[in-house]
């Protein structure tokens, strides 16, 4: 028990060091952060006017969510960034660390590989969360989105499970980068597929039956649906139990699997002598 507490403590301190490091690097590129903020604004306004253009035509398909197109799509695009960022997060970071030579410097320390890989992506998750908040705040204060029904606990649980399951897919993707240096088929395929089939821009009920079946195998479908219900309709944890269980299963299976695959990839790279090649 004491050992477990110590390892959690050690992980937290080291993860904090990774977050601080990435924050300092990010802060040294302040203009990029400001430009990204304007990018978010442009995206929101684009969909605001698309929603205006569509008018009430989409409402028929959105009855389940009890809302119009703009609130529906705003949550979709805000969380799409979350999903795509989480998906590409680790593979991109591993590639950068390989190219800058810092991966070797980290791997020669007594820190566990699992701690290194899990900590590497944390800053991006925090950063994207801030942008999601910006999306929602702009929607609420300037574009008339009503989130007064939001259920905080349900939203938080879904958010955590979403981050865990998507980050796990990204760690699997980083394993490909570790071995093949390029060619990251997992995040490419899943990224495009998730956006198309996961109900980011439209409800999956408008898809043909075959595609709807496929979408039920994707974690994004459950994450987005549950998130919309929790944010727009105020569904409680109990009301979202089935979606939460599905996300929990995805997380429980994918996280250990991804760490196992990443450890295997590191071992393979050490065996091939290509750990620091890029």
């Amino acid at each position, binding site marked *: 028990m004491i050992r477990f507490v110590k390892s959690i403590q*050690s992980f937290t*301190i*080291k993860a*904090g*060091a*990774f977050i*601080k*490091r990435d924050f*300092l*690097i990010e802060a*040294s*590129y302040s203009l990029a952060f400001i430009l990204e903020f304007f990018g978010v604004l442009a995206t929101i306004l684009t969909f605001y006017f698309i929603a205006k253009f569509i008018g009430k035509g989409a409402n028929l398909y959105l009855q389940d969510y009890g809302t119009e197109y703009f609130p529906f799509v705003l949550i979709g695009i805000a969380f799409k960034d979350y999903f795509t960022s989480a998906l590409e997060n680790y593979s991109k970071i591993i590639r950068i660390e390989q190219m*800058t*030579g*810092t991966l*070797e*410097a*980290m*791997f*020669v*320390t*007594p*820190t*566990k590989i699992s701690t*290194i890989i899990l900590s590497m992506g944390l800053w991006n998750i925090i950063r994207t969360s801030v942008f999601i908040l910006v999306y929602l705040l702009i929607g609420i204060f300037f574009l008339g989105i009503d989130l007064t029904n939001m259920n905080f606990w349900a939203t938080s649980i879904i958010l955590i499970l979403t981050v865990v399951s998507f980050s796990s897919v990204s760690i699997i993707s980083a394993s490909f980068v570790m071995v093949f240096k390029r060619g990251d088929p997992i995040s490419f395929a899943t990224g495009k597929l998730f956006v198309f089939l996961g109900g980011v821009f439209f409800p999956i009920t408008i898809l043909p039956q075959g595609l709807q079946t496929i979408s039920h195998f994707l974690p994004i479908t459950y994450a987005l649906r549950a998130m919309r219900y929790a944010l727009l309709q105020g569904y409680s944890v109990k009301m979202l139990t089935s979606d939460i269980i599905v996300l929990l299963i995805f997380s429980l299976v994918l996280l250990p699997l991804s760490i196992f695959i990443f450890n295997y990839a590191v*071992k393979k790279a*050490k*065996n*091939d*002598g290509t*750990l*620091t090649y890029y």
Partner: protein
Amino acid sequence: MIYAIETVNLTKEFIPSKNLINLHSLFFQKRNSILAVDNVNLQIGSGELFGLVGPNGAGKTTLIKMLSCLILPTRGTAKVAGYSILEDEEKVESSIGLITSNERGFYWRLTGRQNLHFFATIYGLSPMQAKKKIKELSIILEIEDQLDKRFQEYSTGIKQRLSIVRGLLGDPPILFMDEPTMSLDPISSRSIKMIIKKKLVREQGKTVIFITQLLSEADELSDRLAIMDRGRIKVCGSLDVLKNSLGIPEVTIEDVFNYYTID
């Protein structure tokens, strides 16, 4: 006797990856393996300053990377600080510091202090310990007043000193140095060599294994040295032993090197 480093038939064979574009080579061409390190048997005592010299491609860096657990051996094994590189990876990593001449390996947008603080944390130091250790080491390496500049603004000499500081953060008993004076001007080079020999080895009792292409440097620094060529240790011992091994009076280290590396 427990050695700081002990290798037994340590071997590394690399198998080149297949060319996916050339179908003939992909399916029909046999891949010839490259023997980078060939049955190396070494014993290095605690507190020794051990030089590893050899021509380019001799396998020196591969050997050090195997001892640092960054490359897995194909055959054989090694113990570093008494721990197996195959079974006690974490303990080996706690016992070593790897210092390369590579300017990569740091975050160029961060200051020297920020870089060192990050690495100190993942070496397991608390914030207070890290602060104290960075101060102590930066005084030894004479870079205390340079730490708050961004890494990208440093000269090669300062970057090299930072690399040494980083390698020492975990206070390891064993240091691997891959060409620690490469690209340095003579003054910086002399200063770094003094720090290695006087402060790290003689005062602190650390074991240092350093790679160098400069025979004069190997001559000046090492207690013992090994000449490596095509993956094999050709000869190993003190400079006198190496010179005597030729059986010719008044030989230089260059003569010894040429004798063992030129066919």
